């Protein structure tokens, strides 16, 4: 397993391509998510918004593309969704949940 470190969230931009960290296990319940990171033994609880973003991250789409997809699916203001997705992905990075 490749070592992962908590990333610099400022490095995440709208053009970044986030990829889930290797080996992270996740489950959904009542609209919330629980992630377990075996590298750190860390447990993370995702609110419904963060869970939607986590589930959408596939290692190929940019943050901007993810935001567009989610805005289209939800019918919400694209600019608001863009800011929200960027914030959530940066939070994932700061917690070391993303690869690279």
């Amino acid at each position, binding site marked *: 397993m490749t070592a992962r470190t908590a990333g610099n969230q400022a490095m995440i931009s709208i053009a970044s391509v986030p990829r889930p960290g290797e*080996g992270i*296990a*996740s*489950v*959904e*319940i*009542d609209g*919330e*998510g*629980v992630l*377990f990171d*075996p590298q750190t*033994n860390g*447990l993370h*609880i*995702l609110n419904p918004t963060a869970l939607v973003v986590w589930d959408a991250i596939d290692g190929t789409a940019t943050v901007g593309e993810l935001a567009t997809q989610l805005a289209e699916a939800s019918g919400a203001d694209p600019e608001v969704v863009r800011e929200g997705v960027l914030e959530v992905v940066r939070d994932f990075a700061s917690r070391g949940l993303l690869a690279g």
Partner: protein
Amino acid sequence: MIAGSSIRSPEPADPPPKHLPAWPEGTGPWFETTRLRSLGLDVRIRTTDAQLGRYLDRAFRDVAGEGPAETTYSVVTTGDPPWPYALYQGSERMSFSASGSYVVEHLLWDLNRRALDVEDRLLLVHAGAVVREGVGVLLPGPSGAGKTTLTAGLVLGGADYLSDELAVVDTTDLTLRAHPSPLVIKGKSRETLADLRPRGTGLSPTYVPGRWLVPASTIRPAALASPARPGLIVAPRYVAGTQTRLEPVSRANMIALLASQALRPRDRHAWTLQGLRDVVAACACYRLTYGDLADACAEVAQLTTTMSREQVR
């Protein structure tokens, strides 16, 4: 999640001897316990100290089985200084000590280690487990949270006992399995549960200082439960002097709490998390902060009574 096991090897009470004595030939006579059989445990214990033997036989009576056991442990009291106490597994030396409590501690630790060697379908969580009015109740939490005290209190109040310290979930049919090893009552819990003090064994505190091994069937006859579906998870937290408070907990939070107390090999995290999710999805989840055992038991009893009535409807 706790990788592998939360159980640590006891720290030696004294330095290891430079020259370990050989197997003491002609040692005996022996007191032998019945076969102890539960989860991965399949052992018999023999000891040259009859008082200790009787104490262990009584402590583990709820996991007593018949027939020959897979492994035999021997606790030998040679009386020879400087290492008068020794523990063997088969003919293999496990420890020698000047302290009787050290070898018994080592024995109990190894019994726990063996119990954890279970089939892949079983999920193990650091929790107490009882059945009340047909509702399987999990009581998860870290050491010192008051799990054992609450488990014992509930059994005293009429709940049936599945396990203490180690709850066992069969993921194939989502049931809580029994692992009725003795409750280990220690610290201030001995004051709260003073009536459960083992009596009539005459055992010297040399072997088990500061704690009691209490089989559930001595708390209440016929207290042993059959496997049950989980319906309620209550995470206890004992805080001296506090008013008892019961609060709902989100299922996501409860999965995280259970995951922090789960025991699985390193490569089965996804399986473990999914298993915990399935358990939690079937349960109502609460956190119980308590300073009084009777109040805490009443809160849990009220929940199970309500759930049981709802099931009947």
